[in-house]
């Protein structure tokens, strides 16, 4: 039986890698995928405590989070496509202006 704390440590490590990706990455798509990774790390904490407390509510919340992540991915990728059409680059540093 693997203790809950092991899964929590794994979730923190994954969340940290996602944070580093969001901070460091200049590629907009990799940055976006890092956000997805952070969402999944939060999901892992929910499932770990759901298992530990023997309540299935966490599973439902994780399911809803997955659905919302799908919606977020659709809108975010549409935004990236539109930004790329306007500026011909996906370097996030080039989008420092709200208006040009």
């Amino acid at each position: 039986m693997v203790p809950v704390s092991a899964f929590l440590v794994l979730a923190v490590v994954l969340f940290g890698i996602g944070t580093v990706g969001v901070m460091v990455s200049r590629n907009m798509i990799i940055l976006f995928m890092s956000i997805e990774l952070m969402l999944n790390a939060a999901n892992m904490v929910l499932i770990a405590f759901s298992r530990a407390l023997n309540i299935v509510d966490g599973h439902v919340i994780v399911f809803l989070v997955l659905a919302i992540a799908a919606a977020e991915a659709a809108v975010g990728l549409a935004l990236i496509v539109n930004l790329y059409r306007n500026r011909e680059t996906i370097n996030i540093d080039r989008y420092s202006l709200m208006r040009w």
Partner: protein
Amino acid sequence: MNFDTIIFLVSAVVAVFGATMMVAQRNPVASVLYLILSLVAQAACYVQMAALFLGVILVVVYAGAIMVLFLFVIMLLNLRGEEDLGPGQPAISRVTKYVVAMLITLELAFVVKAAPVQEITAGILGLTPDEFGSVRMVAQAMFTRFVYAFELTGLLLLVAVVGAVVIARIDRPAGGNMTGPEGSPTTGGGAK
């Protein structure tokens, strides 16, 4: 070291490796593939925590559908990697970003370390019924106590899909000219 621990260690190492390579990659396609590897390993962790249904959903929906959407966009935009990004950043900027990210992660680690996990979960662990996390149990909760949240999620998905179509649409002139004013369909983009 028993069998459960070995499986956990293997899947955890693969998940962290995939996530690290995802961030470190220059080529976005390779990055997506490493994220899929990480997600499959995370699904193995879910199954270890008796979340069978969610493990399957993670592989099918996340690694299967959403990541393919990412691949579609990367190939639609014809991205290759470093040459698309232009000149790099100054070193001080990079170092600052790493330090800030590490500080956030350390803060989170302290919170998790301070959480009384052992006290909360003492005596509960191991009482899990065999069908915990199955489709039946998740669905029973989802369609009774969480039914409004479930319905609202459906509405949200509809709004998101319509919004994605509106955002990504190419604005064409009113005359119905499919190729745009300059003969290129990509010149007039932008949400009005």
